[in-house]
């Protein structure tokens, strides 16, 4: 069995989740405070990939990234960066694709915390930063975990976008979901089964780990 699609998938999901965690926490905090037209527009944009079919997203990314014209051409000729059929392109696409899964639950949980929690912390002389880290984050930790698991899982299962802008290039863009599709088309059911079982086991472990982590709160990974 060729393990490279599994590693590639894990690498893609891992990097995407990490990037989104770094970008997502401050962004979600910012979105959770107050409400302005700018924020609404940014939030609507972030939310779009959630409701957009992967093939639409894939199509527009293909057009944007294609080295034949526009942005893709500019990137290819000036920076020698190619985003179609490359791992970097998949990372960028996954970040866009999974963004709402990271931002949504965190922002929502932050908004649901009573205002008086942060007020109480401010009166103790604590900065916004310290309040965020020591009071707000710990009180939304199940939502945080949810966001991370959702993001990771959503990237793990990414298929349509990868098929459109990644193709099926071994070691570069042939992630597990594509490898399975390929194996099925090749009637190599043993491989398809193996990949599926690995992913199944992996996801089962994730789900169970989250259940156990949340046991005391009796919360599920989607919370």
């Amino acid at each position, binding site marked *: 069995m060729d393990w490279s699609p599994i590693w590639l998938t894990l690498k893609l999901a891992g990097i995407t989740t990490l990037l989104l965690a770094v970008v997502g926490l401050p962004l979600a905090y910012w979105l959770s405070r107050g409400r302005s037209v700018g924020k609404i527009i940014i939030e609507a944009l972030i939310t779009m990939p959630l409701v957009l079919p992967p093939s639409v997203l894939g199509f527009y990314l293909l057009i944007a990234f294609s080295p034949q014209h526009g942005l893709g051409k500019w990137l290819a000729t000036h920076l020698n960066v190619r985003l179609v059929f490359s791992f970097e392109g998949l990372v960028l696409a996954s970040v866009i694709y999974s963004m709402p899964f990271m931002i949504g639950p965190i922002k929502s949980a932050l908004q649901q915390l009573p205002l*008086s*929690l942060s*007020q109480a*912390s*401010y009166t103790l002389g604590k900065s916004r930063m310290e309040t965020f880290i020591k009071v707000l984050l710990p009180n939304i930790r199940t939502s945080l975990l949810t966001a991370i698991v959702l993001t990771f899982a959503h990237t793990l299962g990414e298929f349509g976008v990868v098929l459109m802008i990644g193709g099926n290039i071994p070691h570069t863009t042939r992630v597990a979901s594509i490898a399975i599709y390929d194996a099925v088309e090749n009637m190599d059911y043993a491989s398809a089964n193996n990949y599926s079982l690995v992913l199944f086991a992996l996801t089962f472990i994730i789900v169970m780990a989250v259940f156990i982590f949340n046991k005391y709160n009796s919360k599920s990974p989607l919370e």
Partner: protein
Amino acid sequence: MIAIDIEQKMRSYQGHTILKVKAQIALNSVTKIYGPSGCGKTTLLKIIAGLVVPQKGKIRVGNDVWLDSEAKVNLLPQQRKVGFIFQDYALFPNMTVVKHLQYATDDKVWINRLLHFGRLETLQQHKPQYLSGGQQQRLAILRALAIKPRILLMDEPFSALDQDMRGVIINELKVLIDELSCTCLIVSHNPDELAFIANAELRL
């Protein structure tokens, strides 16, 4: 001297009512604040703490200007650093009793003294959701005292305490307040309970 002169529009079903407060409060005094339910006591305390910004007004504490809506001066709650006891406690669900105090101060001796004062020594490792109403309220008091505030704003701090406990707490609180030379504003519905401790009053 704390000088307060503020005006705040309060939401109410039929239009709005205006909360106007003009008061001078001596430093190191304990002032009892009272008035009918819904008159704006909680709102006033939040304005002093910097948690609500009034439409118009000035607040001066000693020689420092905390708020001057005309001069656009408005200190952050962090800069005012008052001790505040919320009417609904506002405890941190993620922290145990002792973590609440450790979050507010590093002074271990002080923490132990407060735990004893609040009779919460044996409940140190409990989180708020496992505390009874009165235990939660005592924790809220301790947390506000933990930062050794110069100004202490208390929003009905004894409402969930039984009489014996209340007596004990008020007695010991007086000692602490004197020690910290702290100016104290207490909203209360039982003016009697404050007879022993309060030396000024403000009616809204």
